[in-house]
């Protein structure tokens, strides 16, 4: 359940409802598929590439100059842990994509190190996704994807790519790193879409 400011009331722990098959954790597990990169903020850049090949890029200071959101959301990892009420700061993808001319339906997210993940463009819009650079009031540490990661909390956390550096807008869906290896193309935790065919 993505708890976003303004959409739901404050919730007591006793009322916690988790997606099927998930357990609650208080810590923040670090799961890596490769080495943790140390990325220099001064040379960090994020690029959206449209289906026509046009590119739109933002440097670190340009990202910070955009309107900042502070979403507090629940996150759900496909390895079955869930963490509630995580507090982030970043820029809504609505802000970035409104500067981009595109009618593409699909997005392929790219990260430093070669990781990719795919999702529909509509899941990046309407206050559902952010580029976040702070967690719990501090700069996002590298092990959690800093300096900047994608946050799409209504989907399993593998979609919230760490060390994000770009989004490719596509007319045809293209599976990413885990989606080519048996994981679900969409990954809704509330429908327990863990594996292809679920």
């Amino acid at each position, binding site marked *: 359940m993505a708890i976003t400011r303004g959409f739901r009331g404050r919730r007591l722990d006793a009322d916690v409802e988790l997606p099927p098959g998930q357990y609650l954790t208080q810590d923040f597990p670090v*799961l890596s*598929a490769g080495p943790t990169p140390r990325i220099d903020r001064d*040379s960090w850049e994020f690029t959206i590439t449209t289906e026509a090949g046009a590119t739109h890029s933002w440097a670190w200071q340009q990202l910070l100059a955009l309107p900042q959101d502070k979403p507090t959301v629940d996150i759900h990892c496909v390895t079955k842990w869930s963490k509630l009420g995580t507090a982030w700061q970043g820029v809504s993808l609505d802000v970035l994509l409104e500067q981009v001319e595109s009618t593409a339906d699909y997005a392929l997210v790219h990260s430093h190190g070669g990781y990719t993940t795919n999702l529909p463009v509509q899941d990046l819009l309407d206050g559902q996704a952010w580029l976040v650079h702070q967690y719990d009031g501090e700069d996002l540490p590298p*092990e959690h994807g800093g300096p900047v990661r994608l946050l799409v909390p209504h989907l399993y956390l593998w979609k919230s790519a760490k060390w994000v*550096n770009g989004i490719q807008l596509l007319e045809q869906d293209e599976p990413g790193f885990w989606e080519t*290896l*048996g994981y679900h193309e969409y990954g809704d935790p509330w429908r327990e879409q863990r*594996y292809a065919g679920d």
Partner: protein
Amino acid sequence: MVTTPHDPGSAHLDGNVLAGPLRELFAVDMTSARTECVGCGQRAAVAELETYLGGPGVVARCPGCHAAVLRYVRTPSTAYLDLRGTLTMTVPMPAGGAES
């Protein structure tokens, strides 16, 4: 993008941990098989691969260039083995097993 070297604290294990998962698929111990990396050409035993567990699947990387040379996911009904990062895999076999 300029980066400093990868964090030496990134938690990977050696490829001996692949013995269990791959035993489900292969008739021989695959940790002594040798891989040739598509990216840099380095040859390494599976046991020498930098192996990341605990995520959605297993990712084994070249000790030279860190490219993924072997990926493995075991779902309840299917095993997915991705070797697109491996140019060749050389597997020691018991003597006398092949027809002459």
